[in-house]
């Protein structure tokens, strides 16, 4: 990877990230959602792409984070406690001072990440013995069960949901504030992953993907690596859930556990961009989000047909994702030197 190009990309994306909300103020929250989707795709790829564990349940951590942060934000400064707040079904409107609100929010985001990570340890303890489809289906089951059980817990409002504390500042500031949070979390995650994939951790999880039994035989403590991988995913998903909950203003089961939308989108985005690469999920998320935002709403009722078709065509015809397709089509662009003899053997092995 030549550093010059990398720097160029980062400068470009960084400039877009910083200037975006100033250049296009009307789109601030749209771009915030873009970073959110980039984060979802990137963290999904830790397990899905790099480790070969295809999870359909990462959205569980998103929901857990959202609820944890709501509970923290309310309970820290509201004297009556969460139970009183939720049982009043939104009729209580606590007055928080600016300081209280922001302290509560930051504590909430942090707690959301940490508790989501703890949950990932619990889930991991009984999920990581599953491979392939069983892991995928098991994790989907986890998400559905989590969503259903949340609606029965009266402490967090049950099926009535929770109205989040109101943001103290004005509307422009609010958009920019949440935008910055989304951007920072995504940026942190990206650089953390970039560094992690270049360390022994990256090699180890790739080894798990390629052949877990052999990796284990070679003395790699696979379980620990799997836990760490899922823990990182959970932390960022939880923190992002906390931010998303505050952006939405009202949370219930549907907002917190959007299984058929974001839960599947994140996988689709990674597959679109190409899994197992650092940039694939980013590219996939950007393309997916932009296409969705520009066309979705004009299709009124047909959007799911379009999404279904995109998924099918993508998976049936571009199985390597766009990055993979580009890479095999124009290998020179990726700095890969094409050796003719190598190519021939490749084709032979294909046949």
């Amino acid at each position, binding site marked *: 990877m030549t550093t010059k190009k990398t720097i160029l990309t980062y400068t470009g994306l960084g400039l877009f990230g910083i200037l975006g909300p100033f250049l296009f103020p009307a789109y601030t929250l749209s771009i915030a959602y873009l970073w959110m989707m980039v984060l979802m795709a990137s963290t999904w790829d830790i397990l899905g792409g790099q480790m070969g564990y295809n999870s359909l349940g990462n959205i569980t951590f998103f929901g857990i984070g959202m609820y944890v942060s709501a509970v923290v934000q309310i309970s820290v400064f509201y004297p009556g406690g969460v139970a009183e707040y939720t049982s009043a079904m939104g009729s209580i409107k606590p007055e928080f001072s600016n300081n209280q609100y922001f302290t509560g929010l930051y504590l909430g985001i942090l707690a959301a990440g940490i508790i989501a990570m703890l949950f990932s340890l619990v889930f991991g303890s*009984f999920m990581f013995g*599953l491979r392939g*489809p069983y892991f995928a289906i098991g994790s*989907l089951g986890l998400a559905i069960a989590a969503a259903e059980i949340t609606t029965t817990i009266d402490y967090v409002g049950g099926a009535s949901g929770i109205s989040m504390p109101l943001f103290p500042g004005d509307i422009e500031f609010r958009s920019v504030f949440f935008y910055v949070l989304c951007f920072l979390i995504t940026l942190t995650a990206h650089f953390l992953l970039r560094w992690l994939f270049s360390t022994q951790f990256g090699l180890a999880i790739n080894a798990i993907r390629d052949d877990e039994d052999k990796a284990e035989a070679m003395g790699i403590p696979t379980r620990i690596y799997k836990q760490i991988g899922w823990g990182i995913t959970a932390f960022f998903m939880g923190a992002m859930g906390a931010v998303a909950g505050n952006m939405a203003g009202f949370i219930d089961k549907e907002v917190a556990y959007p299984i058929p939308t974001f839960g599947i989108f994140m996988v689709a985005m990674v597959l679109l961009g190409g899994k197992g690469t650092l940039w694939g999920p980013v590219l996939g998320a950007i393309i997916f989000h932009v296409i969705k935002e520009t066309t979705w709403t004009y299709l009124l009722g047909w959007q799911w*047909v379009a999404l279904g078709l995109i998924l099918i065509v993508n998976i*049936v015809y571009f199985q390597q994702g766009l990055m993979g397709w580009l890479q095999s089509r124009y290998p020179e662009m990726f700095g890969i030197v094409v050796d003719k003899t190598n190519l021939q053997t490749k084709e032979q092995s294909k046949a």
Partner: protein
Amino acid sequence: MLDNIQLLFVWAPIINVQIILEGIFLGAVFALSAYGLALVWGVMNIKNLAQGDFVIMGGYLSLAFSQYNLSIFLILPLVMIIMFFYGLIVYRLMIRRVIDQDMFTSLLATFGLSLLMQQVMNLIWGPEVQIIDLDFPVYDAFDGFVTIPSIKIISLILAGMLSLGIVLFMKKSRTGQAIRATAQDPRAARVLGIDTDKIYEFTFSLNSAICGAAGVFVSVIWVLQPFYGITYSVRSFAIVTAAGLGNLPAVITAGFGIGLFEKYVGAIIGTAYEVAAPVSMLLIVLVFRQISMKKNRQAVK
């Protein structure tokens, strides 16, 4: 919860009969769609997430036919035939291309299919909740404590006959044997002159027809909406995962088991947990299988 247990076992134990019957009806429909799933999964390694949408589609076709006042005995074969050809088309257009791919490809491709089908059904039949009432008599038992709509009995018998037919077909017929051979070892089957592509095609279409039949039962027993497919998919997956592939008796037992489990969880802990029950069951089964596999240092693959 204590009240519910007392009610069930002390005050009015007779209502257990009703709950068990409801569980069995539910289980019969699940068992059918789960068996179809086990078939495609076992034979061609396709995890069909659109399974529930095939069921719902069968239900809507049955709705369409019921408007012509056809009897259920005519609707069932008609729906099955149409669904068989629908499965054939789906196979030729997409499933054929994802067969050799890794498992996640088939999951996602069929998820795409599921979205597509839901929405097309929504556009054709509208989002309204639909009901077919064939106006069959309802029988009472135990002083009116237990009621059994005859349509449910008919559905149960038809489902039983259908699965018996499939079992016999798999055991006795040439095609059935070829399907089983392909499931065991596709390469060997090919060497021995079985056209596996044709077998895959037939298997997928058969699954589609079975789902269609399940859909007919759903439509005459419960209600239809274009977006309900996912619940049937999840339950099918729970059953197949619990029972293992290619084991019809186990799939049917698991189907009834999950039906009963769901009803009893609903009756004892509360109906709020009725949807969580089958997925929790799935997780519990997976955990137990892991523990037993771990003794041999293996994972659930």
